[in-house]
């Protein structure tokens, strides 16, 4: 089954048409998407770095993760909302864009990974998880999110 009809339906939607027909809407939403990216980089990296024994080492991993989680979810909501709006303005173009699909696969993997494996390890008793395992969990997280970012930037170059 092809997703193309769904993509075409999004393109014809009122929101998609409004963004496409405006000179300013796309750049403004894109700028908010980029600001969200910066904050997202901070909240993901500060926790992953801590997991690798870098950065704010005085704070226990689980406590830091608990404190940062609302920020992560908040920025994720901003990113998904602005991302969806950008998408609705040009879905059929994106359908044939390899970088878009790469980004979506990385995004799905990153979200699932963050709220399953990473979340479990972050909440675990620190003394019972080996440093090597913690480093691996952090590096996979950074790699998956970097894939999302690179894929996103590449959409424009594809």
């Amino acid at each position, binding site marked *: 089954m092809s997703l193309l009809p769904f993509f075409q339906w999004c393109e014809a939607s009122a929101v998609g048409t409004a963004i496409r027909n405006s000179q300013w809407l796309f750049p403004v939403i894109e700028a908010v998407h980029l600001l969200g990216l910066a904050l997202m980089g901070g909240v993901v990296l500060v926790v992953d770095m801590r997991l690798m024994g870098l950065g*704010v080492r005085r704070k226990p991993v689980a406590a830091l993760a608990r404190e940062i989680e609302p920020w992560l979810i908040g920025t994720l909501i901003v990113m998904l909302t602005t991302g969806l709006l950008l998408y609705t303005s040009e879905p059929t173009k994106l359908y044939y864009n390899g970088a878009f699909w790469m980004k979506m696969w990385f995004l799905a993997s990153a979200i699932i990974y963050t709220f399953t494996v990473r979340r479990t390890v972050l909440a675990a008793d620190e003394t019972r998880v080996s440093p090597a395992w913690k480093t691996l969990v952090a590096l996979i997280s950074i790699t998956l999110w970097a894939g999302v970012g690179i894929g996103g930037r*590449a959409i424009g*170059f594809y």
Partner: protein
Amino acid sequence: MAESLWAFPIVESVHVLALCLFLGMATILDLRLLGLVMRDLRVSEVVTRLLPWTAAGFAVMVISGALTFLNAPVRYYENIFFRIKMVALLLAGLNVWVFHSGIWLEVSDWDRDAVAPFRARLAGVLSLVLWACIVVAGRMIAYNWFDKVAN
């Protein structure tokens, strides 16, 4: 770089990824000054632990940014958003200098405060606002609404 098919996309991707490291860390520092995260950690603890990463990210930003500029210096120079970005960068640098040569020298007096004193909070807010302007203006450089030089 203008002659290469790959150089520009690679340099731009590095610029965007380094943004996550640099501005991500800088934002967390600002949020600590405002008392919004890590209130239980001393301000100097957060700053000394994260500032090296912020500085490393900034170095990558400057290098990849300079390479991007060299791609088409004349066009960027003419671009209004490029000029806004450069002025905001200067102001952001000034803000850092005022912070570090002022209230930061007395950090031992307010190190354990959950919320930093007014002058430190002001530096945090100015930093957040200026960097947001820099990012938005930076993105807008790509749009040539006001360009006099044809692409």
